[in-house]
């Protein structure tokens, strides 16, 4: 099985006529069994097609055309319009929203997330590449063109959660090369406020029989690792976790911003070394190098199954 999406998931692409969205749509249609992209939305472009996908002015029109609720939406509209687009999707019954757009002010993200929570919907991102279930479906630009995605991602027992889109692929490729495939890989976004954190996705992986271990990519900034450590301890999780932490050098340069928007180190708890200590306390192994991840997670899975 997988989490969040499967072969039957239907979704739309909001902002489908944009340059990146056109590519992303092609990639999703081509990957695995072919995603069910049931429509696209760009206001004023009703009646067009993008790679055979009908374009509508509103999400409501897309839902009416589909004749049934639509599961998801990939939102790739400019930052100033993202909040409205996401509200539109939520108010039209969409339950899973992947926000690709970067540089959205936190206030807007917080509003979107709160509305989603009220309506029982889930937001992935912003500033993310989406979700992939190897060989089955991808929702978003994750892994790139179908051919490239197939090179990096293979089906298997590892759940991948990453604050960096590119590193989702780098880690999955490393796992695949070592014979460890992925159940689902989720690029959760690099911003200070995001729809789904590690801890919020853990219950889904916990309930997924295919998943036997978790690999995460993390960076300095924010409290998301503390939240994960707490969740793992409190729920006595069955899943072993290996984390990779990039940006250790930032501990020496407080206040400077590198990488993602969420990496500005503002206080002691946000630093790489604090995070590593906190993760270790919760029994989460922190890998020094990407290439060490497969053997670390492999060994931990073997240990647990031996008990």
């Amino acid at each position, binding site marked *: 099985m997988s989490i969040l999406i499967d072969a039957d998931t239907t979704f739309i692409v909001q902002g489908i006529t944009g340059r990146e969205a056109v590519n992303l749509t092609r990639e999703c249609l081509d990957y695995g069994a072919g995603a069910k992209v049931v429509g696209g939305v760009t206001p004023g472009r009703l009646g067009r097609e993008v790679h055979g996908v009908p374009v509508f002015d509103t999400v409501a029109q897309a839902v009416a055309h589909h004749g049934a609720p639509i599961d998801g939406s990939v939102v790739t509209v400019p930052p100033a319009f993202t909040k409205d687009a996401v509200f539109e999707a939520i108010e039209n019954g969409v339950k899973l929203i992947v926000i690709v757009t970067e540089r959205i002010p936190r206030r807007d993200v917080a509003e979107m997330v709160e509305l989603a929570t009220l309506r029982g919907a889930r937001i992935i991102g912003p500033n993310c590449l989406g979700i992939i279930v190897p060989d089955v479906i991808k929702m978003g630009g994750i892994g790139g063109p179908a051919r490239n995605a197939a090179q990096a991602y293979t089906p298997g027992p590892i759940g991948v959660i990453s604050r960096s889109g590119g590193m989702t692929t780098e880690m999955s490729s490393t796992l695949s090369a070592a014979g460890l495939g992925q159940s689902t890989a989720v690029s959760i976004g690099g911003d200070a406020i995001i729809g789904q*954190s590690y801890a919020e996705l853990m219950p889904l992986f916990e309930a997924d029989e295919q998943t036997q271990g978790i690999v995460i990519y993390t960076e300095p900034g924010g409290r998301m690792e503390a939240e994960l450590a707490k969740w793992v301890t409190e729920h006595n999780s069955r899943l072993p976790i290996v984390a990779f932490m990039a940006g250790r050098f930032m501990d020496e340069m407080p206040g400077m911003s590198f990488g993602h928007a969420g990496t500005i180190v503002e206080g002691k708890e946000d630093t790489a070394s604090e995070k590593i200590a906190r993760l270790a306390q919760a029994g989460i192994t922190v890998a020094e190098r990407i290439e060490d991840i497969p053997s670390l997670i492999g060994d931990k899975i073997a240990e647990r199954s031996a008990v």
Partner: protein
Amino acid sequence: MRFFEYEAREVVKRAGIPVTDFGFTTDPGEAREIAQRIGGPTVIKSQVLTGGRMKAGGVKFADTPEEAEAYARDILALEINGHMPRGVLVDPKAEVEQEYYAGVVWDGTRKQPVMIFSPVGGIDIEQVAEEQPDKVGRKHFSNILPFGDFEAKEVIASTGVTGSALNKLTPIVARLAKLFVENDMTLAEINPLGRLKDGSFVALDAHMDIENEARGRHKKLLKDLGVGDEETRQAREATPFELAGEAVDSQDHRGVAGNVTEFDGNLGLVIGAGGGSLTLFDAVRAHGGQPANYCEIGGNPSVSKTCGLAKLVLQKPGVDKIAVMMSIVSNTRVDIVARGVIKACLELGHDPAEKIAIFRIPGAWEEEGFKILEKYGVEYADRSVSLNEAARRAVEKIQGTTAASETGAPGLIPGGHT
């Protein structure tokens, strides 16, 4: 972006929160005039974006306008932690009965703003939270429901404050919460918030940070405060090298080849994307390498933009070679980056095979990219070579010997401030 105290106080004032009758100036003579207008003792405060100004002598108490002028002159010439002051703030010395704290920040876990209030102010709120946790109240508020003044009242009352103080503080904290949201702040803090002899409250110092991504929505406020578009107010000011990097990145709208940060090493880095750059920078240092810079490529930049970035790094004094490395790319194209960096070498009259220590970018269009690299004899690596191993090879090449042990990371020296 952080505001100076005099700016933050202006924001507070505009929100209807009482402030003292302060004045800001860059001129000692004008400081005297302000002190004269105030009448009575004043406080002269250095306007710098760094902590510890009291300790450094950046805050002085003046009894007369003449003293105010003399102190202003001293403080205007006083560098604090490498920062020269923007000016001085001349403030009436208030007779404060008690100092309180009021602040609003984002809680990234709850994904809501949180009000923080304490009847113990004037010191770091973290210290109060540690030593007197019952004296710190916290309350989250909704992003979509209208803010109610009762929410401010609750957070204040939770710390044991009652009576007329509670009723006077409620609108102040409520206004602070609203200004935080309306101005897209990431921090809005009044510390200390003073209770004067007559029982009234006044903001005596304020810290405010506005989110960079939202600056475009607050053009009027920033213009009124005199904040220029070019002011980034990072922990240290951008160096000419970093500004040149920004210029390269903004030359066209295709992709990113920027976020350049200068260091004092000899290994030029042309790296990406966000997470890959962080990983690679760590790896280079773990192998004893000394980076000349940090940067990020992503979103499939044009050949000319990549070329511009590579040229900038290659021309940096002290740079012997560049390492071109990224995590597996799916949007950015291998061949486009290869063309960009090779072109940079050629245009500067260098042999790409000599100047490029290693090219490790696997992924989209790698077959074409590798053909280009082969033609110019550049050493490249595919995905079977890890980011860590690529960094090791780059460091080894530049040192011309076997790389130092993994624990041999040298100290990190941010460049441009020698």
